[in-house]
C-alpha cells in the first residue's frame, strides 16, 4: 500500500470484496433494483416497536447475511466498521452489540459505506486482519424524525428533496481472494460551497464529489473513460446533473458512463421520490445489491464508487449554517 498523488492510496496487493449483502425497505422493494437485494421488507417496522429498533435489526440481519453468504466463521472476521445517520450511530452499535467482532464505529453521513470500505481495505492489506467487515444503514422514518418533521405531518416536499433509503448494505473485505479487488482509494476533503437548503443535499454535496473525482483522476493518471461506470452515492437527479456540468467545466466528460445510486434505486416518475434516494443505505444497498452483482457477472469490470455525504445536523441547519459535503472514492476492478 502506498500513497500516490495528494489523497489517493494505491493497494499494491489489492484486497478482495469477498461478498456483500443488502436488505431494503418496502419502497425500495418496489423500485427498479428490487431483484438484486437479498431481502425486501414488507413494512418499515419489521416486527419491532420503534423505527430505531427496526433500523438496528436491518443492519444486524444484513451483517448476519453477509457472514453466512461468505461462508467464513464469525470468529475469522477481525474487525467491523459500521455507521449510520442516527445520533451517536446507535443503529450500528445497538444492532451489532451481540456480534462479538471488534467494532469501530464510523460517521461520514451518507458516505459511511465507502469510508468503511476504505478502512477495511487498509486494515486488510496492512496485515492488521485478514477479513474485515464494513456496513452502513439508514431508515426513512428514523431519519425524518431526527432531521425533519413527524411523518404524519401534512406538509409538502420541494422537488429538490430526496428520499432517505430504508435498508443496509454490508461487505466483507479480505486480504486474499479472487476479486473484485479494491485497487485504489481516494479519501475526500470537506468541501462547503455555502448551500444552506437542507432540501437540496445533492447540490450541497456535488462540489465535494467533483473534488474527489478530479483528485482521483489526477492522483492515478486515469481519465473518466478508464472506468465502465462512475457511480456516486446519493447526489440524486439534481446533484447528478450538477456534477456532470461541473466536471465538464473542469475538462472531464463523464456524461456517458456516470450514474448515481440515488437515481438508480427509485423510479422517479412512479415512486414520488422527487430528486431521488439518499442516506447511508442508498450507496450501501445499491453497491451491495446491484453493482456487486454486475461486477460478479463481469457486466462491469472497472468501477469508481464515490459515496457522498452531507455533514450536517438538525441543530446546525436551524442555526443557519451551510452544509459541508464530503465524498470518498474507491476504485473496484475485477
Amino acid at each position, binding site marked *: 500500500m502506498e500513497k500516490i498523488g495528494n489523497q489517493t492510496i494505491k493497494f499494491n496487493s489489492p484486497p478482495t470484496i469477498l461478498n456483500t449483502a443488502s436488505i431494503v425497505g418496502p419502497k425500495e422493494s418496489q423500485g427498479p433494483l428490487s431483484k438484486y437485494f437479498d431481502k425486501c421488507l414488507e413494512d418499515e417496522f419489521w416486527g419491532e416497536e420503534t423505527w430505531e429498533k427496526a433500523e438496528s435489526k436491518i443492519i444486524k440481519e444484513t451483517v448476519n447475511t453477509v457472514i453466512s453468504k461468505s461462508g467464513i466463521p464469525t470468529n475469522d472476521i477481525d474487525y467491523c466498521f459500521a455507521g449510520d445517520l442516527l445520533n451517536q450511530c446507535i443503529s450500528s452499535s445497538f444492532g451489532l452489540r451481540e456480534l462479538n467482532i471488534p467494532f469501530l464505529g464510523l460517521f461520514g453521513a451518507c458516505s459511511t459505506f465507502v469510508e468503511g470500505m476504505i478502512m477495511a481495505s487498509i486494515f486488510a492489506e496492512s496485515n492488521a486482519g485478514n477479513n474485515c467487515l464494513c456496513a452502513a444503514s439508514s431508515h426513512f422514518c428514523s431519519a425524518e424524525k431526527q432531521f425533519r*418533521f*413527524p*411523518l404524519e405531518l401534512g406538509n409538502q416536499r420541494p*422537488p429538490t428533496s430526496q428520499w432517505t433509503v430504508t435498508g443496509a448494505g454490508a461487505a466483507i473485505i479480505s486480504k486474499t481472494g479472487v476479486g473484485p479487488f479494491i485497487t485504489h482509494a481516494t479519501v475526500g476533503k470537506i468541501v462547503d460551497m455555502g448551500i444552506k437548503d437542507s432540501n437540496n443535499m445533492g*447540490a450541497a454535496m456535488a462540489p465535494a464529489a467533483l473534488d474527489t473525482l478530479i483528485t482521483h483522476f489526477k492522483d492515478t493518471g486515469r481519465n473518466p473513460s478508464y472506468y465502465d461506470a462512475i457511480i456516486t452515492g446519493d447526489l440524486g437527479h439534481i446533484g447528478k446533473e450538477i456534477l456532470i456540468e461541473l466536471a465538464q467545466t473542469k475538462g472531464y466528460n463523464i456524461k456517458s458512463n456516470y450514474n448515481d445510486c440515488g437515481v438508480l434505486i427509485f423510479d422517479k416518475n412512479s415512486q414520488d421520490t422527487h430528486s431521488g434516494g439518499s442516506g447511508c443505505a442508498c450507496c450501501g444497498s445499491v453497491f451491495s445489491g446491484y453493482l456487486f452483482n454486475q461486477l460478479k457477472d463481469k457486466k462491469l469490470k472497472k468501477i469508481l464508487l464515490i459515496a457522498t455525504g452531507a455533514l450536517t445536523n438538525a441543530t446546525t441547519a436551524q442555526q443557519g449554517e451551510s452544509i459541508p459535503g464530503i465524498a470518498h472514492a474507491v476504485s473496484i476492478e475485477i
Partner: protein
Amino acid sequence: MDPLETQSQYQNYVNKKSPNSPIFKNCFNAFWVGGLICSIGQIIGEVCKYNGLDIQLSGTIVSIILIGLSAFLTALNIFNKIGKFAGAGSLVPITGFANSIVSPAMEYKSEGYVMGVGAKMFTVAGPVLVFGISSSILVGIIYFILT
C-alpha cells in the same frame, strides 16, 4: 464561467438548476381543498344554527368536529396525503393545527408519555401558540388603550 469560483456564484448556479415547486398547481389545489374544508365547517355551523343553537356554540361545535376529524385522519395515515396534495389548503384551517399536534404525539410515543408525547407534542404547533397568543395580548393592550 466556473460556477465554483465563489459561494454566491455557486448558489446562483444551483438556483438555476433546481426546479421550483409547481406553484400554480399547488395554489389551485390549496384553494379548492381549503374552500371545501371551510364549506364543510360552514354547513356544520348552519345545521347547528338551524337546530336552535346560538352562533357562538355553533362555532365551537364546528371547531370540535373539524379538529376531531383531522386528528382521526392523521392517526389513519390519511391526513398527510391530503396535506401533500393540498398544502396550505389543509394546513391553514383548524385541521392543520390539529394535525400539527397529533403527528408529533404519535411520532414520539416511543419515548414514553411524559418525555415523548407530553414534551414533544407542541414541537410543530408551539411557535404558532406562542406568537398567536402573544400577538393577541398585544392587540388587546392596544385596544384597551385606544378605548
